[in-house]
């Protein structure tokens, strides 16, 4: 079986499980929506947040909502040793990592489909000036963030403190990624600035997505084997 067929088989199983329960999806969406509404109350009558504030709070909402997905998938895999079942199968073990990334990615994208339009509407931020660049930043940024989060969750999976350790390890490692995301999305909410060098931040974003997608795939077998 090819690695991508195995990835698809495992990810399809994750989607089937999530589609059946929907509890965690609804929880993540509700959590994101509540954060947006609370932010709306904080801003009050002052509709139309400055671009830098808007992009920062947008990623704050998305990151908090996404964090629920990492431990969610890990817990389902641990219920009766399902994760070990995949490791015992005749597939490259990096497929297990890529399948988890794909499962988490689909989950987080589905959450973002609801929370981002809600954020733009409730906080009166308005639609991005450069919609294509905004969507690309969200797609690529989510890949980078989810790959990193999935990898760290696998690293701390055996610990009883995994629900705390994963976000604690994730935050410092993801600082350059968040700087890139906030800068790029802030630029999308502002009029064009000739002094803003977006290419630097695009390189950081692409670098994160590439490194944390490929490197854990190579290291996964060593990390999960005891």
């Amino acid at each position, binding site marked *: 079986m090819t690695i991508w067929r195995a990835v698809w088989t495992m990810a399809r199983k994750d989607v089937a499980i999530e589609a059946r329960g929907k509890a965690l999806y609804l929880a993540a969406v509700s959590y994101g929506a509540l954060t947006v509404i609370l932010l709306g109350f904080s801003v009050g009558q002052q509709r139309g947040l400055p671009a830098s504030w808007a992009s920062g709070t947008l990623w704050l909402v998305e990151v908090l909502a996404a964090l629920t997905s990492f431990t969610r998938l890990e817990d389902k895999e641990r219920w009766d040793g*399902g994760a070990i079942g995949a490791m*015992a199968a*005749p597939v490259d073990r990096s497929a297990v990592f890529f399948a988890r990334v794909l499962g988490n990615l689909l989950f987080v994208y589905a959450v973002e489909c609801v929370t981002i339009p809600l954020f733009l509407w409730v906080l009166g931020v308005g639609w991005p000036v450069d919609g294509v660049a905004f969507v690309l930043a969200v797609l690529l940024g989510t890949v980078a963030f989810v790959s990193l989060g999935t990898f760290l969750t696998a690293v701390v999976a055996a610990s009883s403190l995994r629900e705390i350790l994963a976000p604690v390890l994730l935050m410092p490692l993801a600082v350059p990624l968040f700087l890139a995301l906030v800068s790029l999305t802030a630029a999308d909410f502002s009029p064009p600035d000739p002094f803003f060098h977006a290419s630097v931040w695009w390189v950081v974003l692409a670098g994160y997505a590439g490194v944390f997608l490929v490197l854990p795939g190579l290291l996964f077998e060593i990390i999960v084997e005891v």
Partner: protein
Amino acid sequence: MTAIVELDGVGKDYAERFILSHVDFRLNAGEIIGLTGANGTGKSTLLRIMAGLSKPSEGRVWLFGQEPGPRSRSRIGVLLEAGFLYGDLTARETLLYYGRLYGIKRPADAANEWLERIELTRDGDELVKTFSKGMRQRLAMARAALHQPRLFLLDEPFDGLDQRQSERLARWVREWGEAGCGVVLISHDERMVASLSTRIVRMERGMLREVGKENRAP
């Protein structure tokens, strides 16, 4: 004759505490080996190493004459304490999932056949989390045997099964041995181990201390 499993000086330690020490072991085609020993003597760790789920700290492992890898894993059916099941999948979906993962040509047919063999056809579309322990154990057994492995690694396979189901599983184990498969069986049911095994091996403090006489010709 190439052994199905060959361990040469295998050792395993966690955090400077040894679990296995200098284990030499050979399993030939048609052999059913009963692996006995008290709790915590390293039986399950040995099984995990044979399944390619854990790497030894020292020594070498050969499965079907090769180093452990995806190719050898395709010929192993493993049942550990966990059944490798998902509570939010149905029994049929579970077998379909593993059938696809093991590259079975007609996973739906294989799933139906095994659901019938383990008498879960009527419950095939129920979620696994609603199953009793015995039903889960039967499903886990079907999951392990679905891809027609040549090596069965079974850790307490009779747990949760009633007498009739235990006897049926014992019959399958004998049939697998007669068909030239290798079986390593861990069970606290010493009577069952004695009746099924062609050879009995005892683990004591991470070492293979005692090799019983052959019960019957493989």
